[in-house]
């Protein structure tokens, strides 16, 4: 009971902190350079319009996963071994997953609650953020094919390294709130 109350208060404090940071930033901008307020408001509207539809679909997909994906299924098929091969597989899965981190976070959160390890999650997020199918043409256009190939190799290597780096902290992370 006490733990539930503490977690509730922690979440409320976190939500409040975000709105306080936003309020302070808006006030600072209004004082320092009020001309930046309108463009940033328009940028926010653009971002909401771009991201909101996918975020909505992602949350509804996460809701379905929450109901159907049992811990047994996740442990049997999706909990990868904490070794180089396991981290390579999970990093490649991340690289192949389209969308922004924003959009995939609700789904990964459900997998975490069903037993996906912190180290595998970190490796997946490394792959998902560093490379993406939608960004491939842009990266090749701006940086060239050889640089793109180098970055794919780098992304896989970093996925494995970050997975191993997260291993010693797994117990500490699993002991925190939201787990």
């Amino acid at each position, binding site marked *: 009971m006490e733990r539930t109350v503490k977690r509730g208060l922690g979440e409320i404090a976190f939500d409040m902190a975000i709105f306080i940071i936003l309020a302070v930033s808006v006030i600072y*901008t209004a004082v320092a350079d009020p001309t930046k307020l309108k463009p940033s408001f328009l940028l926010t509207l653009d971002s909401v319009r771009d991201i909101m539809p996918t975020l909505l679909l992602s949350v509804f997909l996460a809701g379905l996963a929450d109901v159907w994906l049992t811990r047994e299924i996740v442990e049997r098929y999706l909990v990868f071994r904490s070794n180089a091969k396991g981290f390579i597989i999970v990093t490649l899965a991340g690289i192949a997953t389209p969308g922004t981190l924003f959009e995939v976070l609700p789904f990964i959160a459900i997998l975490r609650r069903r037993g996906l390890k912190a180290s595998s999650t970190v490796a997946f997020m490394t792959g998902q953020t560093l490379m993406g199918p939608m960004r491939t043409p842009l990266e090749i256009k701006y940086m060239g094919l050889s640089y793109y190939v180098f970055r794919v190799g780098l992304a896989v290597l970093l996925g494995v390294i970050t997975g191993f780096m997260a291993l010693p902290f797994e117990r500490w992370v699993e002991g925190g709130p939201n787990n």
Partner: protein
Amino acid sequence: MDLSLLAMLLLVGALYAFSYKLERGKTRLALSKSIRMLIGVIPIFLAALAFASLLQTWVSSEIVATYLGGRSGLWAIFIATMLGFIIPGPRYIIYPIATFLLSSGAGIGAVTAVICGQQMLDMPEAAFIEIKLFGLRFSIIRTIISVAAIFLAGLLAELFYR
């Protein structure tokens, strides 16, 4: 509507239809869980986007170039890692900035660190949602590990990319 969104809409719709056919109760539960998650996430999502947009009007590519133009080596990679941290906006905006930096004389290590930093940390938008869904401990560890990995990426690019 773009193709990827349409494909995702069809996929989610088909999965819900299939789930409804299998078990109506579970599908209703999935819907109510989704709505509860949305209620929790949407205010943070809007606040995070508003903050990121505000930051974007303050941090321009010219500011980034001022700090990185013509620099290479370990110190440049370190500065690039920190700059990548604060460059907001969608991930694809970093490529024109990266070519601009290369043409300004920045080293490939520093440019790689900026690209990886902006993409890997996804600050500040995703960080707020990440803390909300995964907890503060997970986000702290991922951020520290990511910063180390970005620095390493810059170093490897400086040493091995020709």
